């Protein structure tokens, strides 16, 4: 079987950390979405106003322990998704020797508790017919379970138990370290992963975005001996006030919310030593460039460009305009896509991703070229297309902006088709620490983006050499001897697939 990529679908080949429904996808619900955030005196509950795309009976509550809870009754007969979004990813790994630890810890979360050891937990979940997994990105660690909705109460009991009282022991840490090493191995033949890792390693010197979510190999090799670090990590980051619980599906919020309070309400924050401050990446002082020479078999040349962009702030006008830039640059209707892929066949695919990180990150363009094509020439084509976003005042350009805004609205409705998709949309929006306020703020900001806004952010963030990093991956015969390898080599990138 092959899933045949159209130009647009090439995105899936390189999307490494995206959720099924992107934050911006849901943010693009259209101007009709208005969240009535009438907070009661204790600031515990929020309600969704009429006209919102979110189900009207959605309940949003902050428990006394700080856990944010969202329950969405959606029309998915007999099914429910339970997702716990921890606000910790590889972007928090500021401790030397502990790169990859957020992901490693994700694996350890399946080892059970004193009350329900791992093997007992596994059998119980089988009896409940649960589909369980997890994934880690730069900004989050997410535990997601889908199950027949009749089992939701028992599911909540089991989940709450591990988040409060996970058992960590030496043998468990050692065996799981072997599995993580295996995860590193399974991606080592992928040039796409090497390029992804090379780009971030070149663009960042001190911020943890420098390394991939899987971590550097030396740190993975040392994981068997990291029991103490695992205990500290759990106490530091796995606090209820650092998490959002989303329950979406064939459930009644009125019935489920008391069960959540009964189970997840027992989750207590633990004392922990202070975690080092996340280093701030200094301003970039010029164009950065590196090259990976690929000698692991036949490969087409590849190109990755990243522009330094600010952390995403929900509702911010620049953030909203930047979110539209990728589609304007490389979607199916973008001139660059048609020129390079369709007409001249100089690229197999080209893709762009928005800067939606919690910390200052990158707006991305990645491309696989056709055999023998010159990476510098394609780089020049991309930069010309970026310049055109500023220079092109034509009616066609304005029409593309209008179409893109409209597309995002429709895409969002179409994407919310399962309990898992609803959970992902709401959970990812909550990552920015502002609860579901982030949805409302982003929707309004996106609806207000104009051509002037797009031109403003392109001038501000994308036109200067000083914000740009270019990394290429080429076969040996196309190597440019004047370009160095990425600073720490092509480490493996994160696996969005999770623990199994």
């Amino acid at each position: 079987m092959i899933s045949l990529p159209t130009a647009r679908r090439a995105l899936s080949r390189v999307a490494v950390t995206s959720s099924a429904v992107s934050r911006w996808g849901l943010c693009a619900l259209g101007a009709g979405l208005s969240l009535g955030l009438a907070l009661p005196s204790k600031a515990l509950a929020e309600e969704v106003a009429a006209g919102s795309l979110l189900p009207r009976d959605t309940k949003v509550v902050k428990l006394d322990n700080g856990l944010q809870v969202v329950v969405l009754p959606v029309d998915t007969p007999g099914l429910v998704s339970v997702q716990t979004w921890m606000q910790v990813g590889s972007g928090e790994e500021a401790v030397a020797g502990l790169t990859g630890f957020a992901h490693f810890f994700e694996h350890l979360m399946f080892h059970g508790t004193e009350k329900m050891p791992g093997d007992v937990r596994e059998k119980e979940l089988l009896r409940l017919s649960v589909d369980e997994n997890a994934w880690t990105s730069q900004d989050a660690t997410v535990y997601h379970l889908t199950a027949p909705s009749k089992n939701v109460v028992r599911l909540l009991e089991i989940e709450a138990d591990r988040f409060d009282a996970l058992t960590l022991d030496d043998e468990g840490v050692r065996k799981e370290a072997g599995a993580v090493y295996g995860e590193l191995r399974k991606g080592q033949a992928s040039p796409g992963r090497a390029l992804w890792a090379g780009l971030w390693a070149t663009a960042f010197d001190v911020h943890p975005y420098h390394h991939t979510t899987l971590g550097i190999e030396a740190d993975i090799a040392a994981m068997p001996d990291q029991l103490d670090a695992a205990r500290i990590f759990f106490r530091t980051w796995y606090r209820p006030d650092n998490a959002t619980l989303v329950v979406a599906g064939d459930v009644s919020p009125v019935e489920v919310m008391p069960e959540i309070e009964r189970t997840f309400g027992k989750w207590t924050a633990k004392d922990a030593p202070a975690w080092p401050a996340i280093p701030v990446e200094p301003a970039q002082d010029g164009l950065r460039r590196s090259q990976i020479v690929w000698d692991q078999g036949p490969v087409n040349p590849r190109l990755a460009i990243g522009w330094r962009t600010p952390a995403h702030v929900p509702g911010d006008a620049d953030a909203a305009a930047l979110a539209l830039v990728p589609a304007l640059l490389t979607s199916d209707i973008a001139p660059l896509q048609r020129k390079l892929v369709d007409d001249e066949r100089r690229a197999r695919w080209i893709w762009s991703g928005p800067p939606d990180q919690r910390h200052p990150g990158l707006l991305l363009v990645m491309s696989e070229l056709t055999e023998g094509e010159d990476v510098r020439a394609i780089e020049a084509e991309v930069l010309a297309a970026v310049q055109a976003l500023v220079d092109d005042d034509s009616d066609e350009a304005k029409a593309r902006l209008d179409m893109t805004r409209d597309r995002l609205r429709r895409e969002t409705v179409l994407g919310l088709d399962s309990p898992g998709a609803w959970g992902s949309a709401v959970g990812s929006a909550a990552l920015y620490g502002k609860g579901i306020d982030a949805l409302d703020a982003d929707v309004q900001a996106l609806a207000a983006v104009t051509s002037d806004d797009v031109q403003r952010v392109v001038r501000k963030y994308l036109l200067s050499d000083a914000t740009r990093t270019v990394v290429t991956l080429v076969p040996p015969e196309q190597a440019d001897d004047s370009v160095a390898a990425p600073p720490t080599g092509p480490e493996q990138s994160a696996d969005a697939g999770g623990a199994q």
Partner: protein
Amino acid sequence: MSRNLSSLSLLCALGLAGCWAGKPGPIPVDKARAPVRIVGRPVQGPVTWITVAVRAGSAHDPVGQEGLSALSARMLREGGAGDRTPEAVDELLYRLGTDIDVVVGKELVTFRIAVLTEDLPVVTSLLSDMFQAPGLDDDTLVRLREEARDALDKGILQDDEATGLEVLDNLLYAGHPYGHSVQGRGGVVDTLTTADVQRFLETRYLRSTVVLGVAGVAVDADGGWRADVPSSTDLASLHTALSSLPDAIYDPPTPKRVPAVEGRSLLVVDKPTQVTGVHFGHPTELHRGHPDWPAMLLAFTALGEHRQGHGRLYGELRGDRGLNYGDYAYIERYEQAGWSSRQETGTGRVQNPFYVWLRPTSQADAPFALRGATRVVEHFVEEGLDADEFELMRTYLSGRVSLWADDPGRRLGWAAEAVAMGWPDPIATLPDAVEALTLEEVNAAVKRHIHPESMRYVVVTGGADELVEQVSDNVTTPLAYSGSTPPAEGTEQAAEDADWASTPIGWDDVRVIESTDLFR
């Protein structure tokens, strides 16, 4: 053993020379002339899902034109439709916030789209044109051919695990319609022309081979169109358009022979990689309509469900020994849908391999993993499930099936595939079928269909010569337990380790092939 295969033996070994030549029988004329079959599912909400399933997957590639099925399917989506240029189709779909996904399997090609119901007039018009008057743009054909060639020459090889699985599949089905990659063959895809695509569409996309699936508000409880919903007229028009496809008679070449495997053989793929991955198995006569399918599904859920942690293989290799990222076992070629762990719909086959997938280990641990997994399978067939395991799996699976279709589009996909292939709809029928199973039936079915003494192994590794030495029957390969603590002497796991380390596989044949010689 030979260090490298000759080009001729290579072709034979990988099943790349010639196809199975079963004799298709005629189908009744009235069936060929009947309107296209409809699968309808009522769903409330603003979205309508459409699936068009066509019995025209890669097993239906004409001999010598391998890859034509996939190329034709992509040309329908990307080559223009009616008076719409390829660019106009792209722009239309972009405006609608959607796309037409094209999935090509061995048996079926499926076209899927989810749209806002308000957009149905334009979408059904596009789909009608796509099938009735495809654009078949020449420049698009050239691009798609180049993409297929890149996929064969480079794409598969950039994933060690995909390489191993594809080589095993081609090896097991040598001389069979399943014996080449869906993308085609290197050296062949470059020769395919617009005229070839036109001919393929005219002879394979017929009333009798097409199924139209729709889920949305326009569908009534009986699967028909609702007269009170305006969009039902658009869907009826699409059905009429599809039913105007040729009524020519084409009986799909259902493979009638399950390829035989005698003894145990090993093909080592020598590839520049730092790790080692293992696949092994043999063909079976199983398919989703087979009477033993529910029993075998339950059994293999226990042995090694795809990307789940409860299987025996996973527990013994990853859980107890930390050898790798995961270990799974299958009774059909499993195609994962995107990032999820679910099976992609529209990829079922009329015959399927049993196979085991060990995710990459270090090269040092690979021989131990290979022997250990073989012992786990042998033990599984000999002893079967125990009563507790059976009860747990039966409870789990009967509820789990509903999760295979957690959105209306996927639910429609399962239903349309079942009709197109003539199988029971698994989502509707499997829970009851699983509930009705007995332990004895399950264990007997395993013995009937799985024969560990006759399996083909494929190992992808960066150290082929060393691996061949290590897996020799007179060499012992104990596990080093680097990083973790070995089991104490006298424990069950210690005894098992000793057994795994020294178990001879009993190779009848061992060969090595360079990865750059694959898929040609």
